């Protein structure tokens, strides 16, 4: 049994253009998804758009004497990587194998993009569990 992160990528412009009814329908779809796969779900979330993102990174050329970005880190407005379809949400699922995780991933409601399925390293699972 392992855990998989399902990253939901979406076209933010299309998402923003949705009417109230469509947003309601999408939320209801996610609720149904949660109901169907509740036994496998270990977490999930819906992100605010990338316009609200702030990136913190190590300034270029600084000696790598510390693993953290540190006090003189470069703080900038926006996501780490600009992409047409941006990370908009995620689920963490527990599944015995990739086929099971993919079967769940196929059911994730996402009208303007797609999802990426990544196995979580066991160590990360332990951290989460503790």
């Amino acid at each position, binding site marked *: 049994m*392992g855990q*998989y992160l399902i990253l939901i990528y979406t076209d933010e412009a299309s998402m923003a253009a949705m009417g109230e009814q469509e947003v309601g329908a999408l939320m209801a779809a996610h609720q149904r998804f949660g109901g169907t796969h509740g036994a496998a779900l270990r977490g999930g979330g819906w992100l605010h758009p990338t316009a609200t993102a702030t990136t913190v990174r190590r300034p270029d050329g600084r000696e790598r004497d510390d693993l953290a970005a540190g006090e003189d880190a470069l703080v900038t407005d926006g996501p780490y990587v600009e992409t047409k379809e941006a990370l908009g949400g995620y689920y963490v699922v527990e*599944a*015995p*194998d*990739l*086929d099971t*995780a*993919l*079967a769940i991933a196929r059911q994730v409601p996402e009208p303007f993009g797609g999802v990426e399925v990544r*196995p979580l390293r*066991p160590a990360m699972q332990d951290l989460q569990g503790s």
Partner: protein
Amino acid sequence: MRTPDAGSAVADAHRREWAGVLAATVRVTRDLDLAEECVQEAYAQALVAWRDGVPARPGAWLTTAARRRALDHHRHAAVAQRALPLLVVDEVAPEPVGPPPDDLLALLFTCCHPSLTAEARVALTLRLLGGLSTPEIARAFLVSEPTMAARLTRAKKKIATAGVPFRVPAPEELPRRLGGVLAVVHLVLTTGHTAPTGATLVRDDLLDRAHDLARLLRSRFPDDPDVAGLLALVLLTDARRATRTDTGGALVLLADQDRSRWDAAMIAEGRSLVLGALTSRPVGRYAVLAAIAAVHADAPTFDDTDWPEIVGLYDVVLARWPSPVVALNRAVAVGFADGPDAGLAALDALAGEPRLAGYGYLAAARGELLRRAGRREEARTALEEAALLTANDVEHELLAGRLETLR
């Protein structure tokens, strides 16, 4: 010193039993690399052990030997830090309680998993089910050995890390997954039929593997029309193998092949499979491609070929599964059905197709049609271009011969 008997028995068993022995060993090791290692050791052991007599069931002997090795390895590996997670393998009821698990089919579906690239799927299949070496596979796909080795390693790592299961997909998944497996077998067939590179036209090892894989699928999915269509295509294509080159290895064109030496049994079986597969709706791509091969097989001489029928079948393929290579083949058929000028007109429509740029067969087909139309100068230019574009020595020789006649 080993007796020739033991050596040839082992070679024969390598050809026949490799995939089954490996698949059964994977179930025990739950690690593809370790399974390969154990099976290789089992074959090495057989070279010595079989001097005193070849076992009645070589496959069972090899499986037992490989699995015993695997258990030894397991004891060592239990202490050592494992590099990769264990494969996901379903528990099975021990024989004779339940039916034996179909390890061979599980291995095939694992190798052809959609989460792997198309290149990785075919490479893994040839390696794990076909028993081909990394250099042999690299040569078939025009990449260097290190590149192919890296491709195989990466694919095995993904299977283990992402949790691709060692399992035959559930019935609701099967139709989608089977399509991916058929595509791999078809690629093995076309690559073997005309090797993209090298001194020989045909890669016998690849054709044999395509044959075995299509037969394996047919034995497991006897009612599937796409499987029937693919096996028919393999048989009808391969029936001509012996006549496609002469004793010196030079290419013999379809027009000049000795049709009496085509394999009649393969053709008969292929034809009957095609007839069955063509009745299913919607009709499958492999069935139509096999039907084209069947029309060729049915013609007693090249001049008797029913070209309008072939053009019609290519039209079906193009309408449902458009591809520039199929369009090129159709244009060649038009050139025989309606004459070289009509063929050239059909080819001209493909001139701007970027996916055919650098494709030697386009220039070769054009040169051949121009030659038949009596336009010798232009024919020479086109055939010279084709000769520059092929990396297969045998094709190169044929083009050089054609050019000679135009001087």
